[in-house]
C-alpha cells in the first residue's frame, strides 16, 4: 500500500467515524428534548422566575404573592418565628399545658402560614408555579396538580431556606436545598436514617403542608389519650 493510499484510507476512516458520531448525536437529541419540558416545570432550577399565571384561569391575583415584611428575612427567605417567653413550671415540674409552645409558628408550618389566601372551599388558594418559600401545593407551571414527589421536594427546599435549617447541620442543609430529606446518625444502630415525610394530596390533606418525623418508635406514658 502506497503512502497516498494509506492517507486516503485514513481519511475515509475518519470520515466514517465522524458520520457515525453525527448520527448518534442526531438520534440522541430528540430523546433529550423529550425530557426537557419536565425540567421546565421547576423554573428555579433554571434560574428563572415562575411565569405569571393567567388570572382568568385560576382566580389568582397579585395579593397572593405579597408576603408581609415581618415574615421575610434580609436574604429574602420567608420566615415566621415566635418570640417565646419563659414558662414557669407548676408544682409538679410540668409546664402548664396550652401556653408553652405554639407549633403553628415554627418553620415546618411557615409555608402554610403565609399561604395564599383561601379559596371558596376554605382551603388555601394555590398560585401557578412555585419558588422557594412558596406554598408547597402550588400548581405546577402548566396548571396541573403537583405530584407527591414534587410536593416532597418543595417541602425540603423550603425548609432549607429558613435560617433555622442550620439545626440539621451544613451537610443536611445542602441535602434539603436539593429537595432531599435530612439524615442523622442513629448511635443506637450505628446507621444513618432519613427524616420521613408522608405527603398526601392537596384535598386529602385539606391544604395542610405535610409534617416530617424521624423514625422514632417511643411511648409517652404521661400523654393524654
Amino acid at each position, binding site marked *: 500500500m502506497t503512502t497516498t493510499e494509506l492517507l486516503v484510507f485514513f481519511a475515509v476512516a475518519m470520515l466514517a467515524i465522524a458520520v457515525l458520531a453525527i448520527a448518534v448525536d442526531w438520534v440522541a437529541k430528540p430523546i433529550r428534548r423529550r425530557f426537557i419540558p419536565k425540567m421546565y416545570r421547576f423554573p428555579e432550577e433554571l434560574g428563572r422566575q415562575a411565569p405569571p399565571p393567567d388570572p382568568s384561569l385560576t382566580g389568582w391575583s397579585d395579593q397572593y404573592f405579597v408576603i408581609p415584611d415581618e415574615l421575610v428575612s434580609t436574604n429574602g427567605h420567608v420566615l415566621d418565628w415566635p418570640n*417565646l*417567653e*419563659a*414558662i414557669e*413550671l407548676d408544682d*409538679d*415540674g*410540668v*409546664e402548664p*399545658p396550652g401556653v*408553652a*409552645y405554639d*407549633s*403553628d409558628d*415554627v*418553620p*415546618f*408550618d411557615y409555608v402554610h402560614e403565609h399561604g395564599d389566601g383561601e379559596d371558596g372551599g376554605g382551603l388555601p388558594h394555590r398560585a401557578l408555579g412555585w419558588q422557594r418559600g412558596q406554598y408547597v401545593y402550588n400548581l405546577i407551571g402548566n396548571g396541573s396538580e403537583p405530584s407527591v414527589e414534587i410536593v416532597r421536594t418543595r417541602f425540603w427546599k423550603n425548609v432549607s431556606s429558613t435560617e*433555622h435549617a*442550620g*439545626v*440539621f*447541620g*451544613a*451537610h*443536611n442543609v445542602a441535602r434539603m436545598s436539593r429537595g432531599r430529606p*435530612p439524615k*442523622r*446518625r*442513629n*448511635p*443506637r444502630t450505628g446507621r444513618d436514617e432519613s427524616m420521613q415525610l408522608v405527603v398526601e394530596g392537596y384535598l386529602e390533606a385539606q391544604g395542610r403542608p405535610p*409534617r*416530617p*418525623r*424521624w423514625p*422514632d*418508635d*417511643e*411511648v*409517652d*406514658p*404521661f*400523654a*393524654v389519650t
Partner: protein
Amino acid sequence: MNDLAEEFQLSDSDIVTWEGRTVRAVFRLQVTDGDRLRVNRLTVNRDRPQVLKLAIAEGELEVNGVRAETIALWSTTSPRDVAVDVHAPEATTVDIWNGWEYGGVGQAWVGNAGLVAQPVDGGYTLQCSDGVGPVDFTDLVVRIDHVKR
C-alpha cells in the same frame, strides 16, 4: 467549626471530646430485671420542650403503668420525678438520650445535641444539650438514681 452531630459522624463513635469534656450521643446503663431508675428533672430549657428517652435492649420499661421498649419523658407532660421499672429476662442495657421539639417535630441527634454524664452517689447526672444554637448542657439536666434489685 463542626457541630456535635457532625463530630459524632466524623468520629463514627458515640463519644467525642468537646472542649475537654466527654460528650455522648447515648448514655448506656447496665440493668437487670427488677431494677428501678429514678429520674429527677433538675432544669429544663424554657424555649423548647425537652425530652429524655430511655430504651431497653431486651425486655420492657414500665412507667406510670405503661410498658414499652422505648419511653419518652417530655418536660411538657411528665412530672419532675419519675420511676422507671425494668422488666428484662436477663441482664441487659438501657440507652438514655435527650431530644427536644422543634418546629412541632420531635428531634434528636442533630445539630449540637449531646450529653455529659457525671457519676454521683447512687447514679448519674446527665447534662444535655439540645441541637438548637450553640452547645449548652443546661438545656436539660436530670439526675438518674439506679436502684438495683
